[in-house]
């Protein structure tokens, strides 16, 4: 079997001395679409942040194409092809929309690609990043990460607070990116239904541990499991 793109072994990590992730083991294959779901505060954001190198690692191994990257600084991981769209969006307020995109620019990407995906951003290119509405910020945040041509795209609740049309549009964009098999996607979503509809595989997190892994379509239909770990009414 081919080497997984990303492989986590008994990963334990947290913020400073507080440990949030209690031993996560997970392999992600090249081109896979993974949905990461779970209640609030179970550690989804923390897991993505740990893969990106933003947390304190307490133990376990983190491999990228077989090479350990657990000790690399975030910007080095970005250079390897990891990309994260943070839950809090983190638009650079002192930069214009266009400069935000330039900040993420790497390699041969061009900001026109971003404007093609999100024409709205083009209209507001000269605006300060801080003046965007919530949805615009989310578009910018996604587009900015795409400017780095990531091989692994980690999306942390990208649909939160977005209008349904925008959600659909974003999901389309994600479909397109994942569709060619070159971009691997990890999607964190509260709307389990939508996430599982998009993904090949679903992973459920609880209290810093993986409590379920399985085929997304099967899981989507498995009301009992969803109900147990996510509570009622999560399946959209």
């Amino acid at each position, binding site marked *: 079997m081919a080497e997984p793109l990303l492989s986590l072994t008994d990963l334990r990590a947290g913020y400073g001395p507080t440990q949030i992730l209690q031993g996560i083991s997970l392999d992600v294959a090249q081109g896979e679409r993974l949905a990461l779901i779970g209640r609030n505060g179970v550690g989804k954001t923390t897991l993505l942040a740990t893969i*990106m*190198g*933003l947390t304190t690692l307490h133990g376990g191994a983190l491999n990228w194409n077989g090479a350990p990257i657990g000790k690399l*600084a*975030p*910007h080095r991981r*970005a*250079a390897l092809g990891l*990309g*994260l769209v*943070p839950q809090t969006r*983190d638009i*650079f*307020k*002192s*930069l214009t929309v266009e*400069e*935000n995109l*330039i*900040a*993420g620019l*790497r390699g041969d990407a061009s900001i026109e690609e971003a404007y093609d995906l999100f024409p709205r951003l083009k209209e507001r290119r000269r605006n*300060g990043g801080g003046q965007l509405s919530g949805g615009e910020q989310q578009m910018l945040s996604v587009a*900015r*990460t795409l*400017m*780095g041509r990531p091989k692994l795209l980690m999306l942390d609740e990208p649909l939160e607070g977005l209008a349904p049309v925008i959600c659909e549009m974003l999901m389309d964009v994600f479909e397109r990116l994942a569709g060619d098999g070159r971009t691997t996607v990890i999607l964190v979503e509260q709307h389990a239904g939508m996430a599982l509809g998009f993904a090949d595989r679903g992973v459920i997190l609880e209290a810093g541990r993986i409590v379920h892994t399985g085929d997304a379509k099967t899981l989507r239909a498995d009301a009992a499991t969803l109900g147990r770990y996510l509570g009622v009414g999560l399946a959209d």
Partner: protein
Amino acid sequence: MTTLASILLDGVAYGMILFMISVGLTVTMGLMRVVNLAHGGFAMLGGAFTHWAMMSAGLPFPLAALAALIAVVILSVPMERVFYRPIYKMGELPQVLATIGITFLMIASVNYAMGSSLLSIPLPKVMSGAVDLGFRTLPTHRLYVLGAGVLVIVGLFVLIERTRFGIRLRAAVDHPGTAACLGIDTGRIFSLTFALGAGLAALGGILGAELLPIDAYYPLRYMILFLTVVAVGGMGSVAGSFVAALALGILDTAARYLFPEVGTIFFYLAMIVMLGLRPQGLLGRA
């Protein structure tokens, strides 16, 4: 009429010196957003090294100044690593405290090594004396400062507003973590920027020594002056500092020509009015 011309001339010349000695602070405090009360410390080190290089090593002024500049820049890198990096994330109060502590250490070091008396920096012939402008004379030194100031402002503007480095710097300041996720080496950017700020501080200290002479207590004596320029200009705005320095320079000079009795009150009232009207500074972002 001549008075007016004189006020403008002296005001601009003085303002340019104010700009030169505070622009380094605009970089560290304005752009990097760390309340850097130790700015004057770097300026003083620049002056002290120059003094030492001229007096003890016998170097001519340009070489001594260059050597001092390089020394301060080199010194600033480990200092940024050790002292500043941990405080970026802390609030403004710990930053005030830490940088005051650093200032104390710098003062104590210079005091220990060179004593507490004036550390003079004699200017070479070409820079001293006065040029005749017809209706009056102007110290030659001011022309050099004027030139240096213009170079610095243009250079910084291009660097910060027009280059990839500037964008990355501003990004790294806004959200260091996210900037790192985008592949920006924030540590390196901060090191470089801080070194730039320290270098500018040293340059300002050396060039401004004619008016603000160097001694061990320099950093505390002029701290308020540096801060005023940055605050009135607007945090993070190099152009703002420039405008503020000129405005303050002209106002202060005018007050001295026209009603010296009012003294420093005028300067501070002007500052209160300016900050009252524009709390974010003249060119600061709201």
